[in-house]
């Protein structure tokens, strides 16, 4: 009970601190609108990236035993454990135009740091592990007997994966994707260091809230409340879908 209260009270204080009239006025502010747009588009792209690139990795991690599996597992944990600003510095040192890898990209005329690509990369770096770990656990728990039964009936590996493994691990996959998206939405430290902060280009909602839109606390509160509503809405929806289908 105290824990529930502790989690609940700050959120109530946040909503109570917002004035509805200013809330609506701030929504019309182009800087606020662009922060919302950038946040939604970048988090959707990083979610897609996490799921598409993360699923094979999760399958490997959850199903196969191989030498170095423990090390790989720990490596995937690292971005979740690192302070986000450390992640940002690491990304800058790797992919910035003077970076380990980035200098070659720079020679080819490709620049990543301070662009919306950098926003997506920063989000993916910190959020993908959340999906991968959850998906790996989900894949690992699928009953092999069911898969083998399907293959005995003539299903290929791909068909087995698509029709048996994937549906059976659906809850873990959706939970992982939701957590990953939520983490990406709230990402700040790595973003501001690697992607920088420019309204309309790289300023996501968390950045806009922090910088306080030219010291205007009311605009920051508006965005905070909006972030809260969007997060709550999506999580509620996802939980509803999960409970209905299970």
């Amino acid at each position, binding site marked *: 009970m105290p824990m529930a209260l502790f989690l609940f009270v700050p959120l109530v204080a946040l909503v109570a601190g917002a004035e509805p009239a200013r809330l609506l006025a701030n929504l019309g502010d182009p800087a606020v609108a662009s922060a919302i747009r950038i946040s939604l588009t970048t988090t959707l792209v990083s979610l897609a990236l996490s799921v598409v690139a993360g699923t094979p990795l999760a399958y490997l991690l959850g199903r196969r035993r191989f030498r170095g599996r423990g090390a790989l597992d720990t490596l995937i944990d690292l971005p979740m454990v690192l302070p986000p600003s450390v992640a940002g510095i690491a990304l*800058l*040192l790797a992919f*910035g*135009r*003077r970076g380990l890898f980035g200098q070659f990209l720079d020679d080819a005329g490709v620049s990543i*740091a*301070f662009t919306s690509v950098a926003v997506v990369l920063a989000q993916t770096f910190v959020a993908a592990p959340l999906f991968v770990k959850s998906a790996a656990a989900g894949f690992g728990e699928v009953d092999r007997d069911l898969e083998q039964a399907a293959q005995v009936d003539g299903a290929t590996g791909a068909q087995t994966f698509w029709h048996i493994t994937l549906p059976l691990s659906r809850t873990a996959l959706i939970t992982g994707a939701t957590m990953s998206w939520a983490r990406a939405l709230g990402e700040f430290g790595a973003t*501001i*260091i690697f*992607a*920088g*902060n*420019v*309204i309309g280009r*790289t300023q996501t909602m968390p950045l806009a809230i*922090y*910088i*306080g*839109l*030219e*010291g205007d*606390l009311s605009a920051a509160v508006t965005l905070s409340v909006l972030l809260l509503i969007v997060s709550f809405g999506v999580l509620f929806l996802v939980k509803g879908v999960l409970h209905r289908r299970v």
Partner: protein
Amino acid sequence: MCARHRQAGIDPRRLAVCAAVLLAWLAACAVPSAPPTELTVYAAASLADAFTELASVFEAANPGARIVHSYAGSNQLAAQINQGAPADVFASANTAQMGVVAAAGNVVPGAERIFARNRLVVVVPKDNRASVRTLQDLGRPGLKIVLADRAVPAGAYALDFLTRAEALPEFTADYSQAVLSNVASYEENVRSVLGKVVLGEADAGVVYTSDVGGTARDKVARIEIPDPLNTPAAYPIAIVKATKHAALAERYVAFVLSPDGQAILARHGFLPAAP
């Protein structure tokens, strides 16, 4: 003695005696003398190095005092103080943010004193691959420039500089716009601006001259901004009204304004309080 229990359960009387002895011993050990008085100083990010030195000199001269700092962009500190953060002293990088705190009634009106001044300077990476040599070069398309966000004093001062430059014949009429379209990031504190230039990720940045002292000196090259274009940043310091250590806070502020304090600030690249 307390760990042995021959019957089921621990004898509560024994436990109480053990606990009392332990507590008394801890109390005796932990408080040999009066605890130090902690003074919390909220200071702008650009003051970090100077204030660390000021604190160690002040603590040496005032045994029993301990200075604790919080460094951030002045706008963030002002917002925190107005929300009741436990600061005793506020040192801001511009009078506007001190005004924000004063307007909310958190410093005694008129009690603020200017304790240092600062100037802006353009910095470029040491190897200057983009060949930025003059202020006019900043407007060249394709550069990556980093400024502090306008909400942060250093950012506001930088925007002032651009506006003033535009009015001069040596600069094009769209100088300000040309430079701003080169900005790759508006950082939330001026030290981050310097960091990105040092890393070479930005071709140029606008920081304070005080930021280029110390370790950064060898890592960047400077392009001076002449006086007519340079906004002399005035740093005010004031005691927060809600302080519980008014006497110590006054001594601290007096020290900062004293010749010794001013000498320390000068060593870190700040200009004296009096112009």
